């Protein structure tokens, strides 16, 4: 007489076997019909289905919206307008002055996003590299500091923005500290320059840990014997960094550069919660324009938002292509 546990195990095994038997027949049939060359499609079909439904289909729907107008939600009810949405977005008297454009907020978004990308990516990679180099050195509590730098990455962007809002607002922690020390206080989020600066800063603070981790992995992959040889030759530290560390870290740096570029172009959540695009339009980025146009106005311009998101997608596709090239070159 088998124990209850054994009986259950056998029952489960038999049920599993039964299920496998049920699957076997159609798989044999598929193999006979499709032959070995095409049977692979059967295995990737579920994945293709998911990809088609959640990635490819939305792209097609986005295209449909981009060439239709009105404020109706269902594509069948929307009138065809051709390229009118793109023309409106790209129409400017002077491309250097967003206020001269038909869709001024779109161009404010482009210029602000370009400026944000340039500043955020450069400073973030620089700081991530310095941090990775520091964390790679042997020392006490290295694990603790690695966790400290990575911790903000685990936070939700909304939480990050709210924390910093409490710090930076008129009666926030920073002004309280400055006032307490006898310094002048500032409306950090009401001045366009300081609001932009803090948007970049908060974004770097939130994401730096992730890129630091990639660079740290890159640093640890550099063979130690190269450094030992350099030490035997009495190579000075700066030269060692320039001639050994930097060249061997370059593939990781390129990956970090492309990933950071893509993320920076998509900036929205943290800054939207922190500044709501203000003061004025000084921190209004491209994704906020898309959100605002498509989902927050009284009359929702889904077509215009879809056209803007397609233009953004083109930029992201170019950056993704770059990333693939970099990754291939690395491998």
């Amino acid at each position, binding site marked *: 007489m088998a124990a209850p546990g054994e009986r259950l195990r*056998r*029952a489960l*095994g*038999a*049920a*599993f*076997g*039964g299920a*496998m*038997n049920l699957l*076997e027949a159609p798989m*044999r049939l598929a193999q006979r019909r499709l032959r070995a060359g095409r049977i692979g499609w059967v295995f990737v079909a579920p994945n293709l289905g998911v990809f088609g439904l959640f990635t490819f289909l939305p792209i097609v729907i986005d295209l449909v919206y981009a060439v239709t*107008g*009105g*404020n*109706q*939600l*269902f594509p069948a009810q929307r*009138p065809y*307008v051709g390229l009118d949405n793109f023309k409106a977005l790209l129409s400017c008297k002077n491309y250097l002055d967003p*206020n001269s454009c038909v869709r*001024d*907020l779109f161009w*404010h978004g482009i210029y602000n996003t370009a400026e944000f990308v340039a500043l955020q990516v450069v400073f973030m990679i620089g700081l991530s590299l310095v941090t990775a180099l520091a964390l790679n050195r042997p020392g006490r509590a290295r694990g603790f500091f690695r966790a400290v730098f990575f911790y903000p990455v685990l936070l939700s962007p909304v939480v990050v923005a709210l924390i910093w809002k409490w710090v930076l607002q*008129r009666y926030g922690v920073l002004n309280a500290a400055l006032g307490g020390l006898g310094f002048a206080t500032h*409306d950090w*989020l*009401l001045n*366009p320059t300081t609001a932009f600066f803090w948007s970049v800063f908060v974004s770097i603070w939130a994401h730096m840990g992730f890129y630091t981790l990639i660079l740290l992995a890159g640093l640890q992959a550099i063979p130690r014997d190269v450094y030992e040889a350099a030490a035997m030759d009495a190579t000075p530290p700066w030269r060692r960094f320039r001639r050994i560390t930097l060249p061997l870290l370059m593939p990781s740096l390129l990956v970090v550069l492309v990933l950071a570029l893509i993320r920076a172009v998509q900036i929205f959540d943290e800054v939207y919660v922190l*500044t*709501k*695009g*203000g*003061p*004025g*339009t*000084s*921190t*209004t980025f491209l994704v*906020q324009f898309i959100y*605002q146009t498509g*989902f*927050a*106005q*009284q*009359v*929702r*311009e889904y077509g215009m938002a879809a056209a803007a998101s397609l233009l953004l997608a083109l930029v992201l596709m170019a950056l993704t292509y770059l990333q693939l090239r970099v990754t291939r070159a690395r491998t």
Partner: protein
Amino acid sequence: MGSRLSQIRLAPRLAPWLLATAAAAFVASGAAAPTAASAATRHIRVMCYSDGNECPVTRDLAAEFMKSNPGIEVTIDEVPYSAILQSLPVQLAAGKGPDIARVTLFGNYSQYFLDLRPYLKDAKFWETTFGPTLDWMRKGPSDHGIYGLMTQLTVTAPIVDKTLFEQAKVPIPGPKATWDEWATAVEKVAKATGTEAGMAWDRSGHRFAGPAISYGAKYFDAKGEPAVVDAGFKAMAKRFYDWNLNGTVLKSIWAGQATGYRDAFNEFANGKIVMYYSGSWQLTRLLKLGNAFSWEFAANPCGPDACSGMPGGAAFVAFKETKHPHAVAAFLDFLAQPANYRTFSERTNNIPAELPLQKQVLDYKMPAEGKAALATLLHDAATLSPIAYHLQGYRFAGAIFGATADRIGQAIAGSMTLDQAYQRITQDIATAIATAKKK
């Protein structure tokens, strides 16, 4: 591999177990299906936002309604106001909206409204009781539908920090004082008491409209089409712009963000401003402040043309996608009955939109300063310009209000000049209307 798999055969002893499991699953799925009794229950959902305690009070009234209507189940889903503005239109467009919702900007939703007339026992009662506010939910002069129940009448008005005025020994401007006189007075008080700014207005084109109408803004041309930026509008816009730049008005409210609504209640509650331009719906929040300082509602300041604020208010509106129009109409009719409506108004401290009730003395459960505030607000409601009523009922009022707040706010922040803001306001409104009318 295939041969290994085929070695594992379904054990014959398992067959009864599998059959039993399948039978149990079948029975369970049957149990999940509605029984004859539950199928008869009509379930309606109400999406509700509260300015104070409107949703809990509605929930209590719904419980009473369900007692007398056992076949109808009413669920009140309380949501933030932003969900009404942003999520509800998408839900309705997708055909997945609630049966009823408490909304403000009626033009945003009017295409989805259900005309209640065929389902009401006495549509004439509604016409005589709610007459003027029913127009706000209609699509135009030829529309005679009844689409919802106005839950309260609101009116925009200044709220004054009396304590600061007393400390500064500056008299509070009287009922006929102009906006310029108010600006001078609050600036004096702010300077004397070290307050951050003289006043703040909610970041809303609705709040801006009353003062603009007082300074001569007409908002519509002779044909009834929107013509927002005129001399009167510019007169108030220029004043407001200058007051923001010289510190009379707290700049962070309008200039601090690119788009969207923001109120200044916290700034008022924390003593950062002397006068707060908002409206009657703040009364419940003000009463919760306790004895921290003394406040009062004041008469709307005047301009050369009027001493007007803006009317407004929220309504429970019915949507045509509902599967139970009779139940929806029955519930709204229940809320509209004088005794129930009175309970709602008294418990929520709101000015009733029901005409006969406006002439009665309601038993508001509030301290004396609250009752005094309601008396002032009733006076404010009586001085509203007809333009203000017309604007409030206009289908694209939301587009006008949004463009006004965003563009003037951007000008104050320095992102564009005031003249550019005027052009953009006109363009934004025209684009919104053209988009909405495109078929």
